[in-house]
């Protein structure tokens, strides 16, 4: 399965040219698209919050409001926030849609996200011990990790993590730096101090809590409990959705993992190769792609994280052809099929033993 050095170079060249083709045509259409998504997000957030208060007319309005707010939060989290923070729209030089300025409607501070997700996860994708997104330090997803008693109930842990996903994401960097618990790891170097991490964590978290559970209920007057519950439900729906999408990207059955040693000094071609093996796609209609922030094309996202995501489905066809040419496995399937393998993996490794994840290199 292993490619030769020449093949890796050729692979890098072909994938680079796929990227270049798209880069050259970035322009008005992309700007119009992301502004339309942003407008949709704003309109559904505003109308959702208003409809929730109108729930006294009929609870159906409240329910519609909750769904609209959840939609707004999902769009803000996925198609807008995640992608803007990757710098996909930096070229627009826009006052809102720039990775340096954008802040999103979730508990995680945008700066912390950029360090843990954009840097750690995207650089060291699926390298055991380096990419803490592989199991988030909570779940045992392959026999590369020693079984512990707590893994026995990791099905429940997974459910809890999914329900509180935004807080997991927010706490991710503090956990890595052992800010509150555990012994500091000597080999971890952080760009920011522990006190800055704490400030960002508590600051952003408090703002989110006050907004959804104090401010909006307060201005709703007698409808305060409806609004509070509605906001809770909208956040829950968003958490479950994002967690599900993200788990489908890296923890499906045939996904590959790597060891730190084999990735030492890898070439660009090898990096591309690792990104293709370490990610999985799922298929679906356009609206599904948009709701996932096009992370349904996780492979393309990992190959080209800073290309505006709406191009991924078209690029996927080319990438799949390239994968076939070099006999590189290309992991894709329907949403349900992919998700069921994720769920089975979580369940299987809650028990001791099991096979080691497929090593790639």
């Amino acid at each position, binding site marked *: 399965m292993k490619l030769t050095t020449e093949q890796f170079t050729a692979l890098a060249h072909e994938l680079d040219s796929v990227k270049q083709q798209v880069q050259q045509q970035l322009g008005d259409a*992309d700007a119009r698209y992301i502004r339309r998504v942003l407008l949709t997000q*704003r309109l559904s957030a505003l109308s959702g919050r208003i409809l929730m208060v109108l729930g006294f007319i009929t609870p159906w309005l409240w329910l519609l409001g909750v769904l609209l707010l959840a939609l707004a939060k999902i769009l803000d989290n996925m198609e807008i926030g995640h992608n803007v923070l990757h710098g996909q729209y930096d070229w627009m030089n826009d006052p809102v849609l720039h990775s340096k300025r954008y802040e999103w409607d979730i508990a995680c501070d945008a700066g912390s996200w950029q360090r843990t997700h954009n840097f750690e996860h995207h650089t060291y994708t699926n390298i055991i011990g380096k990419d803490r997104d592989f199991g988030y330090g909570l779940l045992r997803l392959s026999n590369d990790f020693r079984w512990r008693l707590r893994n026995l109930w990791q099905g429940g842990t997974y459910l809890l993590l999914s329900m509180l996903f935004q807080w997991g994401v927010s706490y991710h960097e503090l956990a890595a730096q052992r800010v509150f618990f555990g012994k500091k790891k000597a080999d971890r170097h952080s760009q920011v101090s522990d006190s800055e991490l704490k400030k960002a964590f508590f600051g952003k978290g408090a703002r989110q809590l006050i907004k959804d559970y104090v401010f909006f209920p307060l201005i709703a007057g007698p409808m305060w409990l409806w609004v509070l519950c509605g906001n809770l439900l909208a956040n829950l729906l968003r958490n479950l959705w994002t967690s599900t999408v993200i788990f489908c990207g890296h923890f499906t059955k045939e996904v590959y993992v790597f060891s730190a040693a084999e990735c030492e000094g890898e070439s660009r071609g090898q990096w591309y190769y690792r990104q293709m093996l370490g990610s999985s796609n799922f298929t679906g209609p356009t609206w599904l792609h948009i709701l996932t922030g096009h992370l349904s094309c996780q492979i393309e996202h990992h190959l080209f994280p800073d290309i505006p995501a709406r191009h991924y489905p078209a690029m996927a066809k080319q990438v799949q052809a390239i994968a076939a040419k070099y006999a590189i496995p290309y992991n894709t399937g329907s949403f349900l099929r992919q998700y069921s393998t994720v769920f089975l993996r979580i369940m299987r490794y809650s028990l001791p033993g099991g096979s080691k994840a497929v090593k790639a290199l």
Partner: protein
Amino acid sequence: MLGNQSSLTLYLLPLVQRLVPVFLPGQYRARLLCRQWQTADMLQLSFKVSGRWPGFVPGQHLLLTLQHQGRYISRTFSICSPLSLWQSQQQIQLCCKINRAGEFTPLLNQLKNGAVVNISTAQGDFCWPQPATAAVFVAAGSGITPVASMLLSQRHGLAPVSLFYRCRGSENAALLSKLQQLAERQPLFSLTLSDSRTEPAETLQQRLISNSHAKQFYLCGPAAFMQHMRMALTNSGVSATQIRQEQFGLAIAAPAEHSAAGMPLSASFIRAGISTQVKLNPQQSLLQSAEQHGLAPSFGCRMGVCFQCVCDKVSGQVRDMRSGALSGHGAEQIQLCVSQPLTELVIKL
């Protein structure tokens, strides 16, 4: 806070822009009234400016922002029209040198009458204190624009003023007819054309030095031209406080001798948490180098005026392309568009 953006305006921006497509927070709208070629490459644009625009002091410049292929781009231009035009009709004029190979200025020639663009507040301290004192103005090429605004804004010419206008022949002298009319009207104003094709710079320097009893000098033009003029004036005993100047364009000098000759430099740009290694061209600004490698830092005027491209330098030394000033080696903020690399750099975008 409610919208997770720094202001409510930014949160509502997609809605506002749906209603008013060219709205940009912190900017003002200006509607193009007409375009007129002053010379073969100097295009004069007349704008009707939004009533909220706070006005300008003659000699100041502003940032003009356009949206082109989904992307906001801006350049700085000096206002060339008199204050009275704005006060009476809320109009301003810009005189822009069109660089046909450039990205921005050719777009100005494609603007239709009635098109709306964004302008910033007027900025800059290249101004002539009022009431007017005796002064000598030296302008070269497009450097005439702020000078013309200052001179044409004078209601009463009570102080002796002379203008030395250096250009490639009178056919390449923008705004010349207005200045000639002014010279006819105002006996205390003298206009001298200096043709760069026939008159060597030394002759102009001589003529300036013979004027060095004048109270104040105002220089505006390309960097090299101004360095020459400034040197001649200071050598003949004019103190530095008597000279005010406005630089057009950057003085992209050869990299200072500090960098080892021929040594290729590189920088790590940390953007959105990810570090990208970029080979640097020591002749280019860091902004250009970053853009050529597919990074997209925010930017504005690209000449060190608007401070939109300010970034944290973590380590390494840079040189200010306008003044030649050297930075320290440690952490500090730099403007990417006017910084040349001298050493290996680490920069947070």
